[in-house]
């Protein structure tokens, strides 16, 4: 694994905009860069793929453990939601996607930092934008990326379980460029799979006393949402979810996986696993001399603190009211001053590809740069 300098394509901004990727600058900083790329050996890609599959399997066991033992209070999930979560879990309500954030340097096994299992973004740039970069810049190389194909296949699976009209609503905040693009991309792949897709802004979701509705007063039967479950359960309409008159993507059992309490739960269930870091619900001697404190319900690196000898970084934010977890610190690899993290996509439960993010800081946040990657087929590190 290495970081290589790369000449940007002539007119790269126009090429990105032609793909509808018009948020390559976020809050005045470059979000997409093609002045560099990450190069992997095929054996490293195999290792990432295997670790992703393994981790997802461990996570499913963790969900079963939580459901079977009704660990709702530990997960900071309202117990009144327990029966509903168990219902959709036992019914195997389908999942479309999630993204593991992994620390990986090509030398030691990938380590799970967190699972963005409910509302993952950076999907379009991973699935499509970096693929076009590869075709332009490294046409003879390959990329760990079958995200697009697997998304369409996942939607075909959804289509087979729906009535003939096959309509899915897609809820997001339209004024958030990355969310809008992610939701629209999901909708596009659903359309390619033969479904009908209708967008709706999150605040426009209606409740008519019997069903969730869209702005035309049509019932919402399947809702693909970019809005976190832990917020939904505490809002006015949350209680109506329990009527089970609509299906949700991601399903409510993903609330267990997008929850940082998952990390101590996994360590408790699989202590010493090579893809896990020691994690606890409180400070603990086994954390070693450096740790990362993360809010149980946190996003985009907010309220994360890294503490160790000669080591301190912290990010402000609005999370942490439900408490924190402590995870052993595992340094991200640093290339020319950039801390690199692997976002490994899981589509319909299967590894599907990666997207690389990097930042000068140890804490990856929502504006951390997206950098394309490639690997040489058959090549080893």
């Amino acid at each position: 694994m290495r970081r290589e300098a790369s000449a940007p394509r002539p007119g790269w901004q126009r090429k990105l905009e032609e793909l509808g990727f018009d948020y390559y600058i976020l809050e005045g900083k470059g979000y997409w860069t093609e002045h560099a790329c990450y190069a992997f050996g095929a054996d490293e890609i195999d290792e990432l793929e295997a670790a992703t599959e393994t981790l997802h399997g461990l996570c499913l066991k963790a969900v079963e453990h939580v459901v079977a033992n009704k660990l709702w209070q530990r997960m900071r999930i309202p117990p009144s939601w327990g029966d509903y979560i168990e219902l959709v879990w036992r019914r195997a309500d389908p999942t479309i996607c999630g993204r593991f954030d992994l620390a990986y340097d090509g030398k030691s096994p990938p380590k799970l930092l967190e699972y963005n299992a409910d509302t993952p973004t950076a999907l379009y740039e991973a699935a499509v934008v970096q693929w076009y970069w590869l075709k332009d810049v490294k046409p003879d190389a390959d990329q760990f990326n079958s995200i697009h194909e697997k998304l369409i296949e996942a939607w075909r699976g959804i289509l087979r379980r729906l009535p003939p009209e096959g309509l899915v609503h897609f809820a997001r905040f339209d004024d958030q460029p990355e969310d809008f693009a992610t939701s629209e991309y999901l909708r596009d792949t659903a359309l390619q799979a033969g479904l009908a897709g209708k967008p709706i802004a999150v605040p426009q979701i209606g409740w008519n006393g019997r069903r969730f509705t869209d702005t035309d007063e049509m019932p919402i039967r399947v809702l693909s949402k970019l809005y976190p479950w832990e917020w939904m359960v505490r809002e006015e309409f949350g209680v109506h979810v329990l009527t089970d008159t609509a299906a949700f993507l991601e399903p409510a059992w993903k609330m267990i996986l997008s929850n940082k309490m998952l990390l101590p739960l996994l360590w408790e269930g699989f202590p010493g696993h090579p893809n896990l870091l020691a994690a606890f619900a409180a400070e603990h001697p086994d954390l070693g001399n450096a740790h990362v404190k993360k809010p149980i319900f946190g996003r985009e690196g907010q309220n994360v603190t890294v503490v160790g000898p000669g080591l301190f970084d912290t990010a402000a934010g609005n999370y942490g009211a439900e408490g924190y977890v402590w995870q052993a610190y595992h340094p991200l690899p640093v290339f020319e001053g950039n801390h690199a993290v692997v976002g490994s996509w899981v589509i319909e439960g299967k590894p599907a590809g990666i997207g690389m993010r990097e930042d000068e800081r140890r804490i990856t946040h929502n504006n951390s740069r997206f950098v394309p990657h490639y690997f040489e087929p058959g090549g080893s590190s």
Partner: protein
Amino acid sequence: MSRGIKLVLMGVAGAALLYSCSPGIGALPFIWFLPNPFFRGPAVSTPSPTPGESATKPAQSQRGGFGSTGGGLSGTS
């Protein structure tokens, strides 16, 4: 009356009931009683309204019951 004719008349009556409620497809009353599409229990098609439930189009929806948390954040990651 033959069984076949009865079935045809029942079908016509059913259709008349559905379409008499409102002119728009969005008002088809049966759609309000469809279960979660991932529900795999015995009522896989069109369940009837339970006693006391009206088969007419429900009232105008309330909105804004989702989306109030976050203070400008969307909660994605």
